[in-house]
C-alpha cells in the first residue's frame, strides 16, 4: 500500500480540524454558539457507551436500508433497462417520489407503522437511497451496445445468459458509482427518522438529547461520529468495487 495514499487524507483531515479550531478561536465563539474540535474528546469520553450503542443502532439500520435499496434498485433498474415501456411508465413516478422531501414522509410512516421504530428507520434509509441505483442500472443496461448482445445472441444464448455474462458485469462500474451516492443518502434517511420521530434511537436521538440539554459539544461530537460512519461505509463500498469492478480502473498514464 502506498504510504502517501494514507497520509494525504489524514493530513487533510488534520488541516480541516485545525482550521475549524482557528475560526472558533479567532471569533471568540463560546461553546453554546459553536463548539470547537478540542471540546469533542471530553464529550466522547463522557458518553462513550452511548456513542458505541447508538453508532451501532445507526449503522445496522443504515446498512439494512441500503441492502434493501440494492435489491429493489437493481431489480427496478433491470426492468427499466430492458423495457422501454417500463421506463416511460416508471420514470415520472420515480422522479416525483424522489422530489418529495423525505422529512414529510416521516409522520406518515410513524402513523402507518406505529411503534415500529426500527422498521420505519430502515424503510426511510431504503426509500431515500434506491433511486440512484435504479437509475444507473437502468441506464447501464439500456445503453448496452447492440454488438454486446449480438456476440452471444447470434449463438442462440438466452436473454438471461446475456444478462448474466455481459450486461450485469458491464453495468457494475455504474452500479458502484451510484452505490457511493446511496451510502451517504441512506445515512441521511436513518438520521432523519432518528431525529424527528419521538423516542428515537441511534446517533440522531443522541443528537436530539444534546440539543434538549444544551450540550453543544455533544451535538458536534455526534455530527463527527456520523461523518466517521459515513466515511467507513463509503470505503467499504470502495473496497467491494475494487474486488468486483476493479477491471474498470485504468492505470494512469
Amino acid at each position, binding site marked *: 500500500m502506498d504510504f502517501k495514499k494514507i497520509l494525504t487524507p489524514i493530513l487533510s483531515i488534520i488541516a480541516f480540524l485545525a482550521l475549524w479550531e482557528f475560526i472558533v478561536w479567532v471569533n471568540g465563539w463560546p461553546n453554546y454558539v459553536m463548539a470547537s474540535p478540542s471540546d469533542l474528546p471530553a464529550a466522547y469520553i463522557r458518553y462513550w457507551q452511548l456513542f458505541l450503542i447508538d453508532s451501532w443502532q445507526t449503522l445496522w439500520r443504515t446498512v439494512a436500508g441500503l441492502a434493501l435499496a440494492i435489491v429493489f434498485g437493481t431489480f427496478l433498474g433491470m426492468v427499466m433497462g430492458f423495457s422501454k415501456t417500463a421506463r416511460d411508465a416508471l420514470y415520472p413516478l420515480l422522479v416525483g417520489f424522489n422530489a418529495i422531501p423525505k422529512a414529510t414522509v416521516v409522520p406518515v410512516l410513524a402513523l402507518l407503522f406505529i411503534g415500529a421504530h426500527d422498521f420505519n428507520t430502515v424503510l426511510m434509509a431504503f426509500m431515500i437511497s434506491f433511486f440512484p441505483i435504479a437509475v444507473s442500472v437502468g441506464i447501464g443496461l439500456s445503453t448496452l451496445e447492440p454488438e454486446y448482445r449480438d456476440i452471444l445472441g*447470434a449463438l442462440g444464448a438466452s436473454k438471461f445468459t446475456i444478462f448474466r*455474462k455481459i450486461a450485469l458485469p458491464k453495468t457494475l462500474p455504474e452500479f458502484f458509482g451510484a452505490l457511493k451516492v446511496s451510502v451517504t443518502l441512506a445515512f441521511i434517511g436513518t438520521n432523519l427518522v432518528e431525529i424527528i420521530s419521538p423516542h428515537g434511537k441511534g446517533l440522531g436521538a443522541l443528537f436530539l438529547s444534546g440539543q434538549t440539554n444544551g450540550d453543544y459539544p455533544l451535538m458536534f461530537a455526534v455530527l463527527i461520529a456520523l461523518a466517521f460512519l459515513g466515511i467507513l461505509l463509503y470505503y467499504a463500498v470502495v473496497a467491494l468495487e475494487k474486488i468486483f469492478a476493479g477491471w474498470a480502473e485504468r492505470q494512469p498514464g
Partner: protein
Amino acid sequence: MENLIDIRGVTHAYKTKHGALPVLDNLDIQVPQGEFCAVVGPSGCGKSTLTRLVAGLMKPDQGEVWLHGEKVTSPRKTVGMAFQNPVMLEWRSIIDNVILPLEIVAPSMSKAEKYARAEHLLEMVGLKGFSNKRPSELSGGMRQRASLCRAIVHKPDVLIMDEPFGALDNFTREDLWQTMRDLRAAEPFTAVLITHDLRESVFLGDQVIVLSGRPAHTQYVLDVDLPADRTIDILYEPKAVDMLHLLRDQIRIAQGRDGEVH
C-alpha cells in the same frame, strides 16, 4: 459444390417514423462451402442488415436465408460474428474473452480443452503470451485479432464479419488481412465479409459482391481469380488492378454517379 449460404430474394424494410424504409430489395447471394465472400456497396445500403439476417438475429420481410440446406429462422450455434468494434469484455482476460462462445455452445467441454483451443488460435494470430492480459492493455489491432479468435473458437461453419478492420490504420489492416488469410487456410469456415475497402475485398475474397444503393440488390458479382496464397504484392499486379478498377466503376454506378466525370 453445395451453396453453404443461400440468400434467396430477400427484401426487407425498417419501420421508421416517416414510414417504411426499404433497405434490401430482392437480394440474392450464394456462397459455396469454404468460400470467402466479400460484400461491398455504398454507405448505408443495408450491408449490416445483411449480417443480422444471415446470423438469424432478424427475419426478412420476404425471401429466405438458407444455411447448410436449412432455412434460418433463429440464431444458430454454428455462426461466428466479428464487428468493427472488437467488443472485448473488459472484465475478462483475453483468453477468457476468446472462450466465451464455447461457454454457450459447448458447456460440457472442460476448461482445459477450452483454453487449449483458445491458446492455439491466439498463437496463430500472433498473440502468444497475451492470454492473461486485460483487453485494455492491448492495441486496437491486437484486440481485433483476439476478436477474430473468439468468432471462430467454436468452429462455426459460417463466419460473418461486419467491417472488422474498418477502424484500424492501413498498415495494421494489411497485417490483419494476412492473419485472416492464414486463419482461412487453417480453419474450415465459409465467410461473409462486409467491407468498404475494395483492396480488402479483392485480397480476401473468392467472390466480391457489389450491392446497389439502398434498397440494395445484387448489382455485380466478381469472381476473384487469384491464387489462394496471396500476398499484399498481388494487389499491385495488373490482374488485381483491373479488378479494382472494375469494382470502383461498379461502386460509382451503385452510388448513382455513373454520368459524372471521373
